[in-house]
């Protein structure tokens, strides 16, 4: 019998705790496939965030560290600086990375740390029960914006990929989505490229993954994908924003 589809070696057999319809599982798989295909698993150290993916270390079959809220990029910096031969990746949500961890993120990017960040943007705090994130859409109802996000009060959603693309230090910055097969294929290409750049010792890399949160959005998985398509993609344009070959800001 010929195996045409199997679980990546970089994933464990554990059943995840993610909600039905959540796209974390898809993103986990894309990361794991990339590590497998590039042959990096045995020298990879992942860093889990505080947020829905706090237990990601149960699902990845690599060494792992569990970070404080927002500090994953600093921990990855410490590990990578003392062990440049290791592959370091952080897996962070929008509250973890774009709110409390924005400082660590920008400076790791600016120093050109040879690490890879998988940034899951689902426009809401999932684990704590659906509060407003820095990436919550204007007018979006959350448990802390019961009348919708008022941009005059809370500011506009942060476009992390664009912000980091303004940094002159060479880097690889991309934004992808994972709500349709077509988008998943492109997401895989970018995630794998991000790890490839790190493995080559080239640059910092970050892939922002637009993701759905049916539970806290109050939508079915199908409606959530449609909501992402109609509301998030127009504001968060997809694509590769920076490659190390080009210089930002002239």
């Amino acid at each position: 019998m010929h195996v045409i589809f199997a679980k990546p070696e970089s994933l464990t057999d554990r059943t995840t705790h993610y909600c039905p319809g959540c796209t974390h599982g898809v993103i986990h798989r894309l990361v794991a496939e990339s590590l497998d295909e590039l042959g990096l698993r045995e020298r990879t150290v992942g860093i889990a965030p505080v947020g829905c993916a706090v237990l990601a270390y149960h699902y990845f079959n690599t060494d792992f560290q569990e970070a404080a809220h927002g500090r994953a990029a600093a921990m990855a910096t410490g590990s990578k600086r003392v062990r440049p031969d290791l592959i370091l990746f952080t897996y962070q949500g929008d509250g973890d990375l774009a709110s409390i961890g924005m400082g660590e993120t920008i400076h790791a990017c600016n120093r050109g740390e040879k690490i890879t960040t998988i940034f899951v943007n689902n426009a809401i705090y999932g684990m704590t029960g659906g509060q407003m994130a820095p990436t919550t859409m204007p007018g979006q109802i959350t448990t802390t914006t019961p009348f919708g996000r008022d941009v005059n009060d809370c500011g506009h959603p942060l476009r992390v990929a664009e912000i980091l693309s303004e940094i002159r230090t060479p880097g690889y910055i991309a934004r992808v989505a994972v709500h349709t097969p077509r988008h998943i294929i492109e997401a895989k290409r970018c995630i794998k490229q991000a790890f490839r750049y790190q493995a080559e010792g080239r640059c910092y890399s970050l892939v922002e993954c637009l993701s759905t949160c049916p539970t806290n959005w109050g939508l079915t998985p199908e409606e959530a994908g449609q909501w992402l398509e109609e509301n998030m993609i127009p504001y968060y344009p997809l694509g590769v924003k920076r490659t190390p070959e080009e210089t930002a800001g002239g």
Partner: protein
Amino acid sequence: MAKKLMKGNEAIGEAAIRAGCLNYFAYPITPQSEVAEYLSRRLPEVGGVFLQGESEIAVSYMLFGAAASGARVFTSSSSPGISLMGEGMSYIAGAQLPVVFVNIVRGGPGLGGILPAQSDYFQATKGGGHGDYHLLVLAPQGVQEAVDLMIDAFPLAEKYTNPVLVIGDGMIGQMMEPVEFPDPETIPPPLPRPWATTGLKNRHQNLIRSLFLNPDELEYNNQHIRAKCDAMERDEVRYESYRTDGRMDILIAAYGTMARICKTAVDMLREDGVKAGLVRPITLYPFPMREVHEAATMAGEVLVVELSTGQMVEDVDHAVRGACDVHFFGKTGGNIPPPEDVAAEARRVLGARTGRRAGRKG
């Protein structure tokens, strides 16, 4: 090895290198920025890692990551910066990683001042970050002892897989004294780190975490940390006694540079026929409870002298346990009492014999 005249901050940086620690992450803050300046030149010479982080918070997690991947690593900062590192210290203690911190203490609270102080005793010995843990705290009285304790700090951190704090005041950081570094052959090699996250080739996953959602697992982790504290309290207490032989009229308790000033005060009192002695905790945690108690039983009065409004005095009072009265004399803001003032306070205490306990003065 020949003695060399060095500024305290630079000697601390060099001592770390001699101790085999070639990884340093830090954020500048007065009065210890010379440690970073020195190491930014010195570490590249020895193939080490120097990185100026974007904040003390980030630095504390760079230390976490570096230690988690098996490196000897340290940082230095001063009081407000140590407050910011408190979060990372808690995670490092919870994850049971060997990391060395240096706090060259300045006056607080808040931005306080930049002059010497000892007002971080509570933070160093009772907390800093949240949760059940203790730092192992080493308090040098001068530049040579700062070097010696830096050399010891790394093996201690590794022995207990626990953060170690070397705490000095601005005087130790800024003054120059002759120092001698130990023979490299006497430096113990790093302990094996089979737990480190270095890639799982030929083994199962290594996981470094302080998260234990299962109550039994968290309690197990906390009790394990507590057992290490018990072992530190049993095996790692360090202190110095100065002129404490026989019955004393008064026992002075002080640590760090303040203890050196108090030694001169003890000499002055002895010259006047007052039987004075000094006990100097070198480990602030574990605190020399039994040793201070035993010294206090030989004294009529105990006087605690600190560059604070009274912090170590609580541990001394706890150690003395009513064996005699405990008095306090403190200066803050960067004001440092000369030995004459300490001697005068001792005479005042002996003259008054008011029977107050742990009274705050100064």
